[in-house]
């Protein structure tokens, strides 16, 4: 018997007997409609859109956007895996875009409806994880690095500070996302972020286990809070999260360590089975607009992949090394590549590290 998440014909026989009882109790986003209603269901990260973007989009097109939030990619994936409950636009990160393409979960984009694609910066016009940008448009990008308290930490320029040595014992927070932490440990040891080589993986695991005694917590997306509240002095975190707290505490800073790091890219995609695909295309086109893009970048302070929008931004934003790392730094960074084997190995290794 095979589970077929989106084409449920094989399960019919099982459900036939009881199915009638459920009729009303299921979600029915798929209504037979002659014309698309002026609605759009947007599934996004928290604080990841311009303050007035949705209202402006409504003014421009008459489409009412309803935004729901998710906390991480894995959640988004788990929720859509068994079928789309009614979302039109989602914002997965590059490796998840790759995974969702491989799983056939993303709608192919109609480029003729997204004329603003010409605004995308050259470096992002094509992507290894989505050749020809058939399923995704780039949104924001960034790095993983050290958020640190300047008065307490001087050696944040190397991953050594958080992974090895006792200098900051008990004052360190690493990420709760094992895949990234192990990747960074590999990077520190001079290997590829995406390595699945058993010997390299083992060395990284041992490094992390040995460093555990110095780490206060594996923080799930709240390393910046631990940093801001003085619980730790050094946190492995996403650049955007640290930049948010830097605005409120002058003693905090962000750096991408010299060994290199992870380069991530969030993309805007349309999941298969989206009830309002036309509106979704209009929305994708809208956020690639120069003014709309600049407004978004201005609110959320992440590096935009929209060249026309970046051109409209102030020097303060474009010159911020925390937002836009130099080319040298970027050259040392790597994107996370999707592979089921890697995911499984990393997850097992992470469990062992935590249980050790």
């Amino acid at each position, binding site marked *: 018997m095979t589970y077929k998440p989106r084409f449920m014909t094989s399960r019919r026989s099982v459900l036939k007997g009881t199915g009638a009882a459920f009729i009303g109790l299921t979600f029915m*986003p798929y209504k*037979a409609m002659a014309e698309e209603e002026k609605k759009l269901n947007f599934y996004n990260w928290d*604080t990841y859109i311009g303050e007035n973007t949705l209202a402006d989009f409504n003014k421009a097109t008459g489409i009412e956007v309803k935004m729901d939030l998710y906390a991480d990619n894995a959640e988004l994936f788990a929720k859509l895996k068994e079928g789309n409950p009614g979302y039109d636009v989602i914002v997965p990160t590059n490796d998840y875009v790759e995974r969702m393409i491989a799983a056939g979960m993303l709608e192919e984009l109609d480029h003729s409806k997204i004329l603003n694609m010409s605004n995308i910066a050259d470096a992002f016009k094509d992507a290894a994880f989505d050749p020809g940008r058939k399923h995704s448009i780039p949104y924001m990008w960034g790095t993983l690095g050290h958020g640190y308290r300047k008065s307490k930490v001087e050696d944040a320029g190397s991953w050594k500070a958080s992974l090895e040595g006792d200098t900051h014992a008990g004052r360190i927070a690493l990420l709760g996302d094992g895949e990234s932490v192990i990747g960074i440990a590999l990077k520190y040891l001079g290997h590829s972020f995406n390595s699945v080589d058993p010997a390299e993986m083992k060395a990284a695991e041992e490094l992390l286990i040995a460093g555990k005694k110095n780490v206060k917590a594996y923080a799930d997306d709240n390393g910046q809070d631990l940093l801001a509240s003085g619980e730790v002095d050094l946190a492995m975190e996403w650049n955007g999260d640290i930049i948010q707290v830097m605005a409120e505490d002058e003693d905090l800073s962000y750096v991408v360590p010299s060994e290199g790091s992870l380069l991530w890219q969030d993309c805007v995609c349309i999941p298969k089975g989206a009830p309002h695909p036309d509106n979704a295309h209009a929305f994708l086109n809208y956020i690639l607009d120069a003014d709309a893009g600049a407004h978004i970048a201005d609110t959320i302070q992440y590096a935009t992949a929209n060249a026309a929008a970046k051109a409209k931004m102030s020097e303060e934003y474009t010159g911020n090394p925390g937002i836009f790392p130099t080319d040298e730094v970027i050259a040392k960074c790597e994107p996370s590549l999707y592979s089921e084997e890697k995911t499984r190995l990393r997850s097992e290794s992470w469990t062992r590290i935590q249980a050790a």
Partner: protein
Amino acid sequence: MAGKNRSRGPLDYGRSPWLIGFGILVFVLLYAPIVQLIAFSFNDSKRNIVWQGFTTKYYKVAWENASLVEAFTNSIAIAIMCTVVATIIGTATALWLWRFRFPFKAGAEGVMALPIVIPEICMGIAVLVMYSRIGGWMRTFESGPIHWWNELFSIWPLNLAAITAAHIAFSFPFVAVVVRARLAGFNRELEEASKDLGATEWQTFRNVVLPFMMPGVIAGALLAFTLSLDDFVITFFTAGPETNTFPVKVYSLVRRGVSPDINAASTALIVITLVATVLAMRLQAPSKSEG
């Protein structure tokens, strides 16, 4: 009752200074984080770290956040519907298991305890898989009489039925456990006496069994309400774009730090539920016949 004595009798534990002291201590510990939370909802800072002055603006922010208000009302509606149905089903189940001897009873008891035993995430995924299967199956009938059903169940609060049904499934066994613990001390002779005196099955239940088990039923209902109102995991996997609940909303919001408007909304939730419960208790009080 022993409570009639003015001076403290040996059974008057309610006036034992040790017990009162301990109770106060526990209440203080229980409420310290809550008081802090309420205080921070009036804090004029985006992060809950230091006090920066009094403001009520976050109540306005929370109130103007339409999706937060919607999630809020959805949560309360689901919790109320769930409590009513789960209390009825749970009480019936408790009576059933308490009163009757039947083949495979131990098995039935075990199965009824399953929802308590299962890890939430597993049930969340299970419900997700089932609903999406049915959803896929239903999609093959886009028109016809079923279409009419779909329309009906897209109207609030009927569109919350799927979530509510799952909530009832995991909360009624909790009610059953509590009510049954209460029933375990019931003197069956009272019931027999009532029937000997000519009362029907229903009259006996209404006038003898029900009053006895009422504290258990109320405790069970409170549990069901709490479980439903606070559930995140199962709801997360059942909710769609139109049917978000407060915990789901909060979960996605606070992973990046608790903002004061969330504290404000939580304070509002606690005040609303408190007022509603006190009112309900007041309304119910006169009809209570036993002392």
